[in-house]
């Protein structure tokens, strides 16, 4: 039997202990689901696809933010014990459910949306897939907004204003997009102590990203782009 401690409550709360039967190829999501269905139906948690595509099941497992559906118990169990909590750096709604609103608000503050100029009357933009800009975008475009990098980031925990790795990574992919018209506004939005300049290259985001994106690389790109735009008098 696995000994599992699960966070219960909101910002104030406690760890509650459960005993869960252990099976081969068991994931942490299996464990949480077992607790909710068989042991305590009042447990609140999120999941959707359960196959590593949606990012909804992200939680803190033995201190590390992970997708619980893609985390095998065998890989993370320590002395037959698991400690499961909600994602760090976000307010807790209840038990294992984090409030993702700040995460997405910061995405908006970083101008993480596409702003093009063409209309349906115009022809398609032609962007060669092997152009350096497109390859840079491809390295960072698969982000599904799961919040694991945000939870892993020390600067986010130290500085509540910091936009965070996901928002900045998305801004970077848009800065590289040749069709986007709002590069200068975006660089203005991401520069500064709450933006890319606050990244201290801990690379926890890169270590933990389940899609193997490197927000550190994107943020470094933003630092260079902001410096370049400053020298050119555009910022």
């Amino acid at each position: 039997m696995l000994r599992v401690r699960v966070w219960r409550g909101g910002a104030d709360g406690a760890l509650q202990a459960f005993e869960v039967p252990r099976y081969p190829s068991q994931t942490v999501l299996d464990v949480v689901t077992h607790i909710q269905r068989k042991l305590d139906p009042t447990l609140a948690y999120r999941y959707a696809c359960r196959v590593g595509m949606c990012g909804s099941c992200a939680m803190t497992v033995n201190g590390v933010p992970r997708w619980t559906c893609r985390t095998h118990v065998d890989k993370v169990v320590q002395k037959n014990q698991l400690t499961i909590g909600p994602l760090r750096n976000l307010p807790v709604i209840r038990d294992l459910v984090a409030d993702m609103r700040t995460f997405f608000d910061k995405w908006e503050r970083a101008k993480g949306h596409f702003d093009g100029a063409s209309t349906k009357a115009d022809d398609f933009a032609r962007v060669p897939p092997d152009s350096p800009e497109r390859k840079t975008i491809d390295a960072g475009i698969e982000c599904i907004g799961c919040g694991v990098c945000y939870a892993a980031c020390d600067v986010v925990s130290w500085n509540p204003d910091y936009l965070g790795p996901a928002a900045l990574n998305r801004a970077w992919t848009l800065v590289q997009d040749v069709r986007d018209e709002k590069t200068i506004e975006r660089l203005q939005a991401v520069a500064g102590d709450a933006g890319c300049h606050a990244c201290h290259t801990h690379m926890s985001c890169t270590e933990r990203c389940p899609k193997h994106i490197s927000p550190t690389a994107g943020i470094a790109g933003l630092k260079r782009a902001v410096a370049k735009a400053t020298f050119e008098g555009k910022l």
Partner: protein
Amino acid sequence: MSYRSDTKLWLAQRASAGVLAVCVTVHLVTIVYAVRGGLTAAEIFARTRGSVGWLAFYTVFVLAVAVHAPIGLRPVLTEWLGWRGRSRDVVLFIFATALVWMGMRAVLTVFA
């Protein structure tokens, strides 16, 4: 807009870092060499006094440090002590001035 000054601080920090990478390497090598066999003030000053080259080198070193150290401390004060705003920057500027003053006093003592 704060992003402009933040960008300039970031640039100044990286530029001074580059300068210091060179200065620190030279300094470390020199010190390891000089420390062999012990030193007295007379020995040190015999090598250093009147040397325009070393005077210039260490002046650049001091100025780079006076830029780099305060800017480096800035995020530490914000992130670990919660110190934000003008007062933090004023104190850091005073620290920078103190480093220049004390540093140049040391440089002139040793090399002039």
